[in-house]
């Protein structure tokens, strides 16, 4: 799935939803960006920790899993709009039948995937229904 340092260098974002924000225009970025898409060179980027609450913009139930996710299939993958504005891609844990566009969600710390039986296990943020 990934090398250890490649995953490790983003742990803050993956574990704690740390992103960035441009002081110039006020837009929030998750995943974090070092260059503001609106202000570019004159933007002023600062770290920002997201609250984590948001809603499902769209979703799918994946039956044919991505490499490293075979044990989790079928799983719900969604685009989630955080309350501060940015959208991200994440799994949503829970009954697939209950998922719907507009559903409120909150973050949870979960195992994301693994590099085979003896490989590294990746942890990070998934989401659950806000009332779960």
């Amino acid at each position, binding site marked *: 799935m990934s090398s250890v340092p490649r995953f490790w260098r983003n742990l803050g974002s993956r574990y704690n939803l740390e992103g960035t924000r441009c002081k110039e225009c006020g837009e929030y970025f998750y995943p974090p960006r070092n260059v503001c898409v609106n202000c570019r060179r004159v933007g002023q980027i600062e770290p920002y920790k997201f609250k984590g609450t948001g809603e499902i913009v769209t979703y799918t139930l*994946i039956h*044919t899993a991505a490499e490293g996710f075979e044990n989790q299939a079928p799983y719900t993958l969604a685009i989630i709009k955080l309350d501060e504005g940015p959208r991200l891609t994440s799994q949503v844990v829970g009954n697939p039948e209950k998922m719907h566009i507009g559903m409120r969600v909150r973050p949870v710390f979960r195992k994301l995937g693994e590099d085979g039986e003896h490989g590294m296990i990746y942890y990070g943020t998934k989401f659950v229904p806000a009332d779960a």
Partner: protein
Amino acid sequence: MRDVAIIGVKNTRFGELWEQSLRDIVVEAGIGAIADAGVSGKEIDALYVGNMSGGRFVDQEHIGALIADYSGLSRNLHVPATRVEAACASGGLAMRQAIMSVASGYSDIVVAAGAEKMTDVGSEEASSALAAAADREWEGMAGATFPGLYAMIAKLHMHRYGTTSEQLAEVAVKNHKNGSFNPIAQYKNVISVDDVLNSIMVADPLHIFDCSPITDGASALVLAPADVAHKYTDTPIYIKATAQASDTIALHDRRDITTLDATVVAAERAYSMAKLRPEDIDLVEVHDCFTIAEICAIEDLGFAEKGKGGIVTANGETAIGGRIPVNTSGGLKACGHPVGATGIKQAVEIATQLRGDAGKRQVAGAEYGMTHNVGGSGATAVVHIFSRER
């Protein structure tokens, strides 16, 4: 800028070509296109090759040099060869580079080829390689697959516009029917809406028959300045526009999940360059990597109102004989999708149609054709417009 014309074209057979290697298929397409154009190796000024992932699929990089070598253009002629990569839009971009090279006056005769050899690895490895066209760190590591990303586009399109699974299936049904008339197509079998709906679910709402297959294949074409095109062929096909646009690599960062802004902008640039409108286009090859992708494409290119792509398809408006025939080749769905070759194959199909050589799938009296090639879930789009008359 000089006007540019296509003077020779060739596709290999598309499918699971166990007996042929990457270099075999590109050379077959390249030599075929050169023979079709009637140019000699000494006249070729440059070669551009679209290839997405030789590294993952056949553990081979440096594809440009490899292809020039095995096409006999290296050891004696030292023709410059450049590989172009933009995921599934690699072929379209290779053609665009070739067009710009001729238009600028830097080169005269240029070969644009595209190829992918995808079946030398298992389907899991191939899917993983394809997933590299998305954002590996922020989509792939969350468990996203390519069908999964397009499934999320489909889910929202259905929610907003009332598009149905049956309408998505109609795209596959039409493209299989078109593919049945194309000798090179990977799938020549006709299928029904029920066949699609009863096929296994890959990523809800997309069934396996909503997805383009894994394919080996290569395509090539030869370009020349329009002023000399008639020296080589009686039926040059003219490039009226070449346009390209970028968008965010990740689907979640797009302005609108159900619109490929890169397609919209590339199309606007192309129409403007060609001084044409959607109504002027007689047929189009769009990037139907999934059925929903064709629905979005016909909307974003201006052939259907946003949200009406499913209805337009179900009404038969995109069939051969309809208002705007879409994917007469069978598209990526039925003709097959060797990712690096697709953008060139689309142009070969349009050139074949505009020459009047498309046999049973011929669009009668076609004057203007368009190609639309997408990289990833829409981070790159390239649109070309072609014409029979200069």
